[in-house]
Structures are given as C-alpha cells and as structure tokens.
C-alpha cells in the first residue's frame, strides 16, 4: 500500500497507537473542548448523585456488570449448561432491575423421542382469529407494529390463491362463499432459513422446533428472504409490550422480550410445548381446527390424521418438508 492510500484510508493501515492514545492525542479545537467539558460535567454530576445513594449505586453497578457480561455472551447453542443458566439468570435479574418485576425464563431443553408436528383442518377454520390474539399475548409480540406470527387468509371458494386472499378481513365470519386457511412457521425438517444465516443464530432443535438466538442475530434478514412461507418477522423498532400484558412465563428460545433489529418467529410456543402443553393457538381455537402433537408417538392424534386423512402441505415441491399439514373433513 502506498503512502497516499494510507492517508486516504487510515483505518486500513497498521495502527501505531492504542485506541486510548489516539483519543488523547487527537487535535482538539476550542468548540470540541467546551463540548467535552460540558459532557464530562453532566456525567460527573450524575455519578455524584448516584454516589450519594448507595442502593442505587450498587444496583446501577450490577446493571452495568450484567450489560457488560451480556455484551460478550456467545451463541446460545455453543454454551455449556452453566453458561446457559447464568445467561438466563442475567436476563431475569436485568429485567427485575429495570422494571422491579420478576419474569420466569426457562431454558428447558428438548424432550427425548419427541418431534413436534401440526395439522390444520381447513374445513373447520371459521376465521374467528382467536388463535392470532392468543399468539400475540402468549409470545409478547410487538403491539406497536401489530406483529403477528399467524396469518389467517380469507379465500374465495373455487381456488386457493394466496396473492388475492384477504389477510385483514373484519366482518361476520365465516363469510358466505369464502373459506379460511392459516399460515405460520411450518418448522420445516429441511429449513432453508437456518442454512442461510451467516452467524448461525437460527437452527432446528432436536425436537424439530426452529428457533432464533435473539442475542446472536445480527438482523441481516437473509432468513426472511430464504423462507418460502413468509413465516419470519423483523423488529424494525424496539418492540412495545404493555407491562400489564406481559407474559412472564418465558423461554430463552421463545417468547422472551426481543429487541430492535432482530428476527423472530413462531416457536410452536416452546415455553408451553416442552412441558406437554399445546401451543397457545391450538388451545385458543374454538373450532378444533388446530391439532398439535408428537410425530414419534404412533398413538398421537397427529399421526392418526397423517394416516387417515388426505393431507397436503404448501409448496411441497421445494423439499422443505414442513411439519405442518393441512387437511379437510
């Protein structure tokens, strides 16, 4: 590299000073000096104030320590059990320090010999939207942007064209001449979304649930582009969840609070399903159109449906192997 290049792109050259030295040695004009002094004065006063309140000081010190540790936190999948536990405790304590309220974050791993599958009865869905509401509440989804993992598409009888379906209907349902079909993350057994992640912040768990490590996600949204089913959502702004509507029963890979700039999606309510419960959408559905269960249990309802009903999946030709089947009565 020639000298001119070094002048133009100093960052590309070998650093000759440490960061601190560079900061201290940079040329300072009168204006900058006054600005810096004012900022230092404000910061100093703040420090003095907290210094006079020993409790607040210890709490803010603890908060700073938690933030520091969180900053250097690794990929959840590479953590050992101790690291996972301390990561989760940090999250809980941090929330408590910020809001004064407690949350309960689980890190429960996959159950042995369980592979989750889902079936959706197109004949039964009547467009009530109870599933969508339950999902929003259960999973602490952003109220500001009206984030929804589930979409219910109102289709005109005679075809199934998602491009002309109405996803924002609000009238008496089921409307004459229409049927309803829901989509969400299908937890593909061969998921394209996880393969494109440049930092491996999203992966499929052994029980078949495709999850995201919200702390490791860099927000590139490759996964959103790769998903053929429009199943992933992006936080363009800091998510807003009213404090009194917060679901405190959370899972690290599930419904814990997200932040701006990360991708999230349906996790089959990992915080519920791993303890034997049904996802919130299944429980909320009043028509029984949603069935959830263990594909590895030959006696499960989902296996009965796969064996006895004529089922189909969306875009099967892509080979993504969704674990989400549709059927009709």
């Amino acid at each position: 590299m020639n000298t001119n290049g070094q002048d133009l792109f100093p960052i590309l050259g070998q650093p000759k000073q440490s960061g601190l030295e560079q900061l201290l040695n940079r040329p300072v004009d009168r204006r900058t000096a006054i600005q810096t002094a004012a900022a230092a004065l404000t910061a100093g006063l703040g420090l003095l104030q907290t210094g006079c309140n020993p409790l607040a000081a210890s709490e803010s010190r603890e908060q700073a320590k938690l933030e520091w540790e969180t900053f250097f936190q690794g990929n959840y999948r590479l953590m050992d059990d101790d690291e996972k536990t301390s990561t989760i405790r940090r999250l809980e304590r941090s929330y408590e320090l910020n809001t004064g309220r407690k949350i309960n974050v689980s890190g429960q791993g996959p159950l042995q010999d369980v592979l989750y599958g889902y079936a959706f009865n197109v004949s039964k869905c009547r467009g009530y939207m109870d599933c969508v509401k339950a999902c929003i509440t259960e999973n602490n989804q952003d109220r500001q942007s009206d984030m929804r993992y589930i979409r219910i598409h109102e289709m005109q009888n005679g075809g199934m064209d998602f491009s002309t379906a109405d996803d924002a209907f609000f009238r008496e349902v089921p409307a004459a001449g229409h049927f309803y079909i829901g989509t969400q993350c299908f937890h593909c057994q061969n998921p394209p979304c996880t393969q494109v992640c440049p930092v491996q912040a999203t992966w499929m768990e052994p029980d078949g649930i495709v999850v995201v490590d919200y702390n490791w996600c860099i927000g590139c949204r490759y996964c959103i582009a790769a998903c053929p089913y429009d199943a992933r959502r992006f936080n363009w702004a800091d998510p807003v969840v009213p404090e009194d509507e917060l679901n405190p029963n959370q899972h690290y890979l599930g419904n814990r609070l997200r932040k701006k700039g990360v991708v999230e999606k349906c996790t089959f309510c990992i915080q519920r399903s791993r303890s034997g419960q049904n996802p919130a959408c299944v429980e909320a559905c009043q028509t029984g159109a949603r069935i959830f269960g263990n594909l590895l249990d030959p006696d499960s309802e989902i296996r009965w449906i796969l064996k006895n009903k004529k089922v189909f999946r969306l875009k099967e030709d892509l080979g993504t192997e969704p674990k989400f089947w549709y059927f009709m009565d």
Partner: protein
Amino acid sequence: MKALAPLALLALLAGCSSHSHHSVLSQVEKTPVQQPNGGASTAAALDLVSRVKVEGFDTLPEFHVARRSPSMDKFPCMKCHTKPLAQLQREQQGKKAAHWEVKLEHAPAHIMDCATCHLEADLDSLATLKRNKVHIDHAYQVCAQCHQQQANDWAGGAHGKRLAGWAPPRVITSCAGCHNPHKPKLEPRLPVLAGRSPAR
C-alpha cells in the same frame, strides 16, 4: 454459450440426483423410540377433570371423554321428572314450560323429535335408535349413530378439542362440549380484534 447449455442442464440433473431427499414421515417411521413422549405428561393438569373411558372405538388406544353430567344444573332429570311425562305435560298446560329455551333445530321434524335421543321411560338416560339406554356422559354414542364420519374423526383426533395439552393422558371434550345438541350448528360471529384493529 449454446454449446454450454446442455452441460449446464446435465450438471443441474446430476445435482438433483445426488441430493437424496428423505421425507420427514419416512424419518419418523425409522426413528426408534426409547422413552415415549420423553416422559411428558398432562396428568397433573387433568387432575380435577372428571372423565370416563370412551367405549366403542376398540381399534384405538384408550382415551377418555370429559364428563358433562357433574356440571349440568338440571341433571339428574329425576329432580323434576317425578311423574310420568304425559301427566307432567297435562299439569303444565297453560303455564310456562320448564324447557322453554329448548327449541329443536337439529334435523327436520319428520326425522327427529325429543324421543329420538331421550328415553321417555327413563329421562335420566339417552337412548340409541334401537331404544338402548345410554348414559348422558356417553352421549357421543347417540350422536355417532348418524354422524359416523364426525365420530370417527373425533375419536381419532381430527375433530373436537383435547384438554390440557398434547402429552398423554388423552382426554377430549364430548360432542356437547362444543355443540348444543338441540341446535348444533355454530352461528357466524365477528372475529376477535387481535392486536391493533385492521388497517381499513
């Protein structure tokens, strides 16, 4: 460029054949299971649910239906039906009928009346079309006579609602848990407002 096209096609085909595709179901069938359902259970959540074993679906593994009789305020019927029905009807004439809210909107009158499902000789019980007694907690057996398809789907898991979760034991709601037997059709309604109201 034109000469390269067949080559590219060949490469594409080779790529397809080398990528062996396994369906998730073929994987599922090949997976040996050591601990069924990972030991997960909904037994604790179902502790207070009064239930009976479902009878008449012998090819299926054992499952239960939530009992309705403990929560029915007019059951047992013998609380009021102390006299023969005809006598009660005579005495009630001109007064407000006890079952004023029941209007049968199930099947046309030439197919169905009260006695199609209720056993006149023993009003605590339901009856099959051949007048065999059926306990009210096994009412699905009465429904299943006409609605065989629905009953099979219900027993298998494609119709109806399961209680507590996906993990065993399997307890499901009875037909009347969702459908009013006297008026089984679900009425249209407005969808719930999920999140913010629709943009329009």
